[in-house]
């Protein structure tokens, strides 16, 4: 049956308009005010007062399978994504085994298609077993459905291997995504090197550990004329390097995560070193937070990704040292971005840009990232004013590790449509 979204405000990266949206099968066939269709021919979603965004696209999630289905699996990951308004998510290959060959990638892709709640696209590893030693079979990974490659969780330390990866990837149009962390410098670090580490002697993680590798990878991409995407950028200095590289025409894009524009290391201190604030890369200073917001506004940061990193209760039960790095993000990204957009007095268009249009462009995904005729009916219908509070019971992700547990946030995704089907409906 066809579907009509009535009375909403449609938010795209360049515009907000009042319009109805008519959907046939999996495609948007009309976007204009006052579409009239007999109600026995169409299911109507009344969206008066609501906002419709193009379904969000997340370039960076961890769905933990194969290997740790106790943390997350494709079904719970997909449900969490749909609840957060996402319709396309990319899952990182730091699984057990790593997504480093055709069989594992195809297994993920096939499973995801069976589930069908959202589009799940596996990211292949750059090197076998993510060991940084030898390249994976890029061509076969592409055949299995990968659009990007990353050793996320590690940098490819060997610059020679990384160079060859960039070159080889060109043949397949695969996007190389860099996790930037010099592990000698980050060492045992758990908190950003700062007054906190100086005063309390926590193992330090210098901002340099990120910006140094950002700088190296940008240089390699520049030298080769290759395409580079930088994951979870968190420091002011990294952003300065990226800003300069873009100015000089290097083909580089980057993402940040909601926690880097919502939280700083002061929040770790204020929480009494709650391990739910422990994340890789670590939360930065107030200055970094401001720099991230500015870079989002000015387009130095292309998109917002979640780095959704589910962990079990036990993984986060210990103190700040013992806990694993990472926080879940799929169900929080929109509310946190909305909060920032309001604090910075920006238009809602930036949300459509950073969470839908830009990631679609970065991955060259067709018919996604915009609410317009001929595009997939991937939509997030949102109530901006509705308040909610995350509890372990209402989080869809299998893991509950988030510093926003029990915090009140605004912005609820009322409906998520994926290819014209309602895949999520908020409980009233």
């Amino acid at each position: 049956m066809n579907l009509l979204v009535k009375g909403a405000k449609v938010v795209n990266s360049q515009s907000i308009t009042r319009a109805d949206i008519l959907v046939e099968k999996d495609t948007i066939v009309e976007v204009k005010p006052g579409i009239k269709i007999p109600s026995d021919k169409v299911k109507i979603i009344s969206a008066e007062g609501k906002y419709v965004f193009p379904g969000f696209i997340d370039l960076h999630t961890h769905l933990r399978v194969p290997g740790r289905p106790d943390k997350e699996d494709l079904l719970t990951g997909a449900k969490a994504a749909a609840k957060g308004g996402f319709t396309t998510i990319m899952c990182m290959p730091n699984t057990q085994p790593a997504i480093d060959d055709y069989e594992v990638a195809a297994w993920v892709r096939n499973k995801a298609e069976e589930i069908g709640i959202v589009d799940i696209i596996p990211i292949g590893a750059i090197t076998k077993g993510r060991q940084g030693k030898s390249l994976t079979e890029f061509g076969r990974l592409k055949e299995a459905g990968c659009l990007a490659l990353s050793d996320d969780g590690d940098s490819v330390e060997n610059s020679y291997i990384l160079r060859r990866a960039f070159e080889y990837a060109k043949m397949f149009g695969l996007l190389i995504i860099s996790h930037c962390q010099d592990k000698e410098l980050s060492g045992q670090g758990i908190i950003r090197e700062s007054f906190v580490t100086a005063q309390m002697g926590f193992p330090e993680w210098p901002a340099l550990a990120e910006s140094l590798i950002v700088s190296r990878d940008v240089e390699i991409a520049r030298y080769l004329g290759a395409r580079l995407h930088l994951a979870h950028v968190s420091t002011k200095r990294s952003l300065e390097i990226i800003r300069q590289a873009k100015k000089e025409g290097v083909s580089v894009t980057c993402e940040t995560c909601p926690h880097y524009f919502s939280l700083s290391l002061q929040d770790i201190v204020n929480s009494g070193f709650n391990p739910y604030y422990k994340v890789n890369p670590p939360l930065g200073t107030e200055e970094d937070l401001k720099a991230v917001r500015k870079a989002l506004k000015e387009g130095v940061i292309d998109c917002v990704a979640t780095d959704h990193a589910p962990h079990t209760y036990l993984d986060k039960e210990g103190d700040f040292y013992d806990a694993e790095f990472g926080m879940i993000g799929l169900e929080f990204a929109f509310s946190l971005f909305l909060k920032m957009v309001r604090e910075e007095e920006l238009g809602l268009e930036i949300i459509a840009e950073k969470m839908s249009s830009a990631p679609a462009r970065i991955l060259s995904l067709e018919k996604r990232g915009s609410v317009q005729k001929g595009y997939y009916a991937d939509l997030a219908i949102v109530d901006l004013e509705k308040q909610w509070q995350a509890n372990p019971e209402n989080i869809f992700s299998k893991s509950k590790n988030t510093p926003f547990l029990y915090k009140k946030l605004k912005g609820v995704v009322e409906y998520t449509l994926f290819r014209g089907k309602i895949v999520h409906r908020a409980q009233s």
Partner: protein
Amino acid sequence: MAENFVWQRKHLLGLKSLTKDEIEFILEGAKAFKEISSRRIKKVPALRGRTVVNLFFEASTRTRTSFELAAKRLSADVVNFSSSLSSLGKGESILDTLRNLETYSVDVFIIRHSHSGAALYVSQNTNASVINAGDGQNEHPTQALLDMFTVKQKFGSLSGLKVTIIGDIFHSRVARSNIWGFSKCGAEVWVCSLPTFIPKYFETMPAKITFDIEQALKDADVVMLLRIQNERLNKQFFPSLREYRQLVTLTDDRISLLKKRTLILHPGPINWDIDIASGLKPQVHPLILEQASNGLAVRMAVIYMLMEKRQYEFAG
């Protein structure tokens, strides 16, 4: 100290969060307990029926013994838990251990752990009082309090003194607690070391930083030496002990720069010929042992105060 001062705290996690009044209150209390230690019968019944657990996740003999004796002299029941004898490593977490011990209605946990923030973490997870006996590289408040007590004994007041701390500042919880404590009480604190032993952003601490040992020693009223913590040096910080001796070690020549009245402290254990030239042992060691003996009085005072506070709580 302000008049009508009342001790309010349940835990002693560090000196960073204490006020000058609170620090002085502890030091005053220690004076009284020092007197008790010189009596023929050294035990008082103050904490009869109370349970104190030494929760030591890191090797320690001197600090643990000092706390144990302090609690016993207050007539508390003392249980020693050290990780080598425990079920840690058999899959039981710190938290599980804590919860198990808590079932014995513990009044005070005295914790030592290799993680900064461990004492805070334990305090967040127990109803008992918590005393930090050294958490990672963060704080070792009773060590600093006994250092301050020793200095006060000699100089009467801490205000206006130049206190110089020399050695591995980077890994030292003793240095950090002393910087907070002495600076709150009006002393001018200097740290002097190899640049690699001064963490980046250390200028946010209330201490002056110098790499010039002569400047650090000149006019110092107190010189505190810290040992190189080989067990924490899993990465390189300096090229060799040979060069360290040339640059930092307190030698005969360097000691001659000091004023006559300068007090030399070391939290122990001393690496002779690295921290201090062993030729100075006859001269320096007695001072350092005197310092250690004050630890007992300070720890009795701390345990007693935290318990008294709890008594008020129960009464209220």
